[in-house]
């Protein structure tokens, strides 16, 4: 069953700043680790904000986990969608990391023990267990990003949106994120990752949506997302490192992801 369904969704910030024009965005997304990629200003963040009601479409409908978003407030969508903002400073306001991460499930009125356990698990998944009592603003950007991710997970929602989670992440942070996104997808959740990090997409996401100038150019398996070079160029993207390297070595079609690359290279005649 598709977890997110958009039908003919149109949206403009103003007549001067149109984003999704007629006939609008139509898109169905499965329960999986999904990448949302496209050039700066393509409408990626706008699309995610339509999913939890932070923005309302001018026309068309959005259904998330069986819930028509139009009938719900942002607060009512919170148990359904966990959302980590692009800029953590737009989101963080509590005095400790623990309070920040607990905020969502607490205002949803969940029992204290449930909240405590959920927060501990989220902090652990995000590598923040040792910083529960720290003030969020005493953390560096990459760590503040992790606080927003832990907050998105704390209410245990079926849909998780991570807007540019690789921002400022070092190598170890990317590895942790990679494992987390794979695990969430494997648990039957829909995790939607907005990113420019194409290598991360190739490694961590099974499904890729390419959005360009307000239009969906591709929605399907990541393994096939990079086959059309014209489309990749048009959307301001690039090939994943492994795909680019394999192509230069003569692969056609070229593998996507490290595992596929290794498998392909092993069967090359020396």
């Amino acid at each position, binding site marked *: 069953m598709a977890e997110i369904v958009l039908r003919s969704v149109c949206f403009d910030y103003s007549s001067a700043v149109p984003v999704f024009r007629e006939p609008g965005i139509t898109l169905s997304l499965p329960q999986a680790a999904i990448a949302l990629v496209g050039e700066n200003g393509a409408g990626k*963040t706008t699309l995610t904000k339509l999913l939890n009601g932070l923005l309302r479409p001018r026309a068309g409908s959005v259904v998330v986990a069986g819930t028509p978003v139009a009938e719900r407030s942002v607060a009512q969508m919170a148990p359904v969608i966990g959302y980590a903002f692009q*800029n953590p*400073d737009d989101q963080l306001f509590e005095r400790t990391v623990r309070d920040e991460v607990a905020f969502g499930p607490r205002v949803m009125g969940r029992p204290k023990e449930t909240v405590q356990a959920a927060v501990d698990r989220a902090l652990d998944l995000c590598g923040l267990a040792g910083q529960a009592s720290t003030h969020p603003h005493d953390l560096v950007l990459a760590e503040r990003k992790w606080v927003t991710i832990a907050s998105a997970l704390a209410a245990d929602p079926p849909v998780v949106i991570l807007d540019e989670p690789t921002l400022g992440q070092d190598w170890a942070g990317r590895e942790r994120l990679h494992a987390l996104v794979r695990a969430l997808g494997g648990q039957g959740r829909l995790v939607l990752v907005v990113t*420019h990090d194409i290598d991360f997409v190739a490694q961590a996401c099974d499904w890729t949506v390419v959005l360009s100038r307000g239009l969906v150019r591709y929605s399907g398996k990541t393994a096939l997302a990079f086959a059309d070079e014209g489309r990749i160029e048009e959307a301001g993207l*690039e090939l994943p490192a492994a795909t680019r*390297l394999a192509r230069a070595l003569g692969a056609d079609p070229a593998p996507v992801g*490290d595992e596929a690359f290794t498998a392909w290279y092993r069967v090359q005649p020396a």
Partner: protein
Amino acid sequence: MALTPSVTLAGARYRYPDTERDALGPIDLTVLPGEWVGVVGPTNAGKSTLCYAIIGLAPQFFGGRLRGEVSVFGSPTASQPVNERSRRAGLLFQNPFTQLSGARERVDEEVAFGPEAHGLPQAEVEERVAEALRLTGLQDLRARHPLDLSGGQLQRLALAALLAMRPELLLLDEPTSQLDPAGSRALFDVLRGLHAAGTTIVMVEHRLEAVAALCPRVIALGEGRVLADGAPAEVFNRPEVQASAGMPAFARLAALVGKGPPLPVTFEAAVEALRG
């Protein structure tokens, strides 16, 4: 006569207020005019703090305690006001939102803010704004309100505002973190042009492939100190750098199929190594 270094740190140590250990140092580092230095390392290695210390925000804005010497163009930062240095040196913040003046309602007015604040003649301000907008591909967005821009567009605006000052020393803290790949390529082309024209560049960057391809010199930081300093092929082959900063994607792929050491660190070197 020896060239006056663009940046000198000698026994420099910096500690943020209310903290119990140095975020940076002790560190010794010299960057000569015209160099393009990539700075890599894990979170909390001191990469941003190094930028703040060089530009003087640490300690002039953040407080805390700086010991040892930090000089820019031969003048100690401690005795030079930040606004004086901003004529010759500029820092692109990691979060572009931090960079906005908050006082301007159009993209082109925001870009004009620095040159105007330094009292440049109107004609020159206009010329610099046009050049900075062209270099960053923002001409079509010049009438937009800065707060109506996407994250990546905002990052290009922050860079444009910096370029309008025509700094001799550019400090860039993850300049491509919010840019799409085409935007990153365009930015790197701009930096190549500035480097060729003699601008000194210190660039913090997590995309190690980009650092390996662009920067003749790489400094790997760990816990506030210099772990390694040298050419990319050398630095990224050091086990302690690989364990903390990671390795460029092409080195990772070569290692996966059993090549090296030494591992190729650029695309071209990887094609060569994997063909053989």
